[in-house]
């Protein structure tokens, strides 16, 4: 127990250095950093445009008021900030790290290889506009609604955002791990990555069948829909349980898959 605790502290320390080194590294290329922020601002505008149109046309998406839809959009923007900041670049670079044999020098380090391979870079330019935009969007729609959410609902909201991020990590890691079996997997990775945008609107815009599919079979809707549903008390106990269990289940399954995958690693370059 004590040893596990010590290892966790060590990994947190290493993570602090990963984050610091990433920032220093990105600031080395100032122009790229600034262009990254500007590009992301345009993405943010397109997302906000959805909310704007919903307001202008006073559309009620699947029984949600325009303000509720806006709060959903804000939550999705925050989740995008977390996902792009912590996971996206790392997961995206796994296939080439494996193909180029870069994993060699990670396997010999006395820290978790999965942690090293999937957490070593932190992206700053993309999340900055999203965090600011997301918080403003949520705050504005919250106050317009005069939302009186209780402590339990807010806790559930925050918990489900964090577990949604963990779910996204596990879910998007799976296709990357297939690289240990089939080396080049760009086509598959692209398809799976596009599933992220299924969260840009509340799942109520889809039919019942699609909703079930996106909750239970390919749990993408759990990521951004569940936190908001918990906040509006729209989440049945069954779905709440699913929202808590599925990220944990997937996380531990992916951990197992990762260990199987690195046994298959055949290195490269001599």
């Amino acid at each position, binding site marked *: 127990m004590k040893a596990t605790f010590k290892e966790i502290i*060590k990994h947190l320390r*290493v993570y602090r250095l*990963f984050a610091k080194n990433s920032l220093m590294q990105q600031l*080395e290329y100032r122009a790229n950093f600034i262009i990254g922020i500007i590009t992301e601002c345009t993405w943010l505008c397109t997302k906000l445009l959805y909310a704007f149109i919903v307001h202008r046309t006073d559309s009620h998406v699947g029984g949600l008021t325009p303000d509720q839809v806006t709060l959903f959009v804000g939550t999705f923007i925050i989740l995008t900030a977390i996902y792009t900041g912590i996971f996206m670049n790392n997961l995206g670079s796994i296939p080439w790290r494996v193909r180029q044999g870069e994993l060699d*020098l990670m396997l010999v380090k*006395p*820290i978790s290889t999965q942690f090293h391979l999937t957490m070593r870079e932190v992206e700053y330019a993309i999340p900055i506009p999203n965090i600011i935009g997301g918080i403003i969007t949520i705050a504005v729609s919250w106050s317009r609604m005069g939302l009186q959410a209780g402590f339990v609902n807010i806790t559930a909201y925050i918990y489900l955002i964090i577990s949604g991020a963990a779910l996204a990590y596990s879910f998007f890691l799976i296709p990357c791990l297939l690289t240990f079996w089939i080396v080049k997997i760009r086509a598959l990775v692209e398809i799976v990555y596009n599933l992220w945008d299924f969260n840009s609107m509340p799942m109520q815009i889809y039919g019942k069948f699609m909703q079930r599919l996106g909750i239970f079979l390919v749990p993408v809707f759990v990521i951004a829909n569940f936190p908001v549903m918990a906040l509006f008390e729209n989440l049945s106990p069954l779905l709440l349980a699913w929202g808590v269990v599925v990220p944990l289940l997937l996380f531990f399954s992916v951990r197992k898959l990762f260990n199987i995958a690195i046994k298959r690693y055949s*290195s490269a370059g*001599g």
Partner: protein
Amino acid sequence: MQIIKVENLKKHYDYYQKDQGLKNSLKNVIKRKKLVKEAVNEISFNVEAGEIVGFIGPNGAGKTTTLKVLSGILFPTSGIATVGGFTPWERKKAFKMGFSIVMGQKTQLNWDLPAVESFNLNKCIYEVDDAQYRKTVEELTELLEVKPLLKTQVRRLSLGERMKMELIAALIHEPKIIFLDEPTIGLDFVSQKIIRDFIRRYNEETGATILLTSHYMNDIESLCKRAIIINEGHIAFDGNLADIERDENTTIEEAITKLYENKEAKAE
């Protein structure tokens, strides 16, 4: 004390062949003929603690594969190996804390940042305390003459300077066992000599066991008493360099080339 023991170690890879042309590429989409590359074939050897052993062989002989298996990077097809009392491919933390590998063709340094940032990261990963870390970096940068370069981004360093930084990064945790895979590849002879002298001194002062591969006979001759010559996955010679048979007119390179040929003739 034998610190590295290798018994009947074998590593085979599956791969497939592709004949020239688009037609054959299309054919390969439907059906691939699986072939097996015998990278390392039933090799056995032991290394005493504190020894520097040269691992020699032509490209593709199986040297790097052997080092990767001994580092726990690759799983062997069969055979037994223990390094510092551990089975490498179990990848235990205690094993990883006690050894290091440097590959001339690969880098562990962060390209965009000064090398000292990578040293600091290794300090944290290998749980080295502050005083020990400062002492090690101070000593090693002095010995390798790279102290003024600590604040220069790695991408701006020359190949020789970068290699010296790679060595320091690998030695931050004072490993007892060190695998050096072509540490002098592509370096000018001055840098080669500095690195060679450094390796010798490090071995003398710390008693670390070193397994070294190199294509430069100067490296091997000046550092290793003992050499293991490997060709096509088999050991062709294991013993003192001085015992390699040759007459006065033959250089060590020629004598070794002859050993490769003998092995090939035997294999046939």
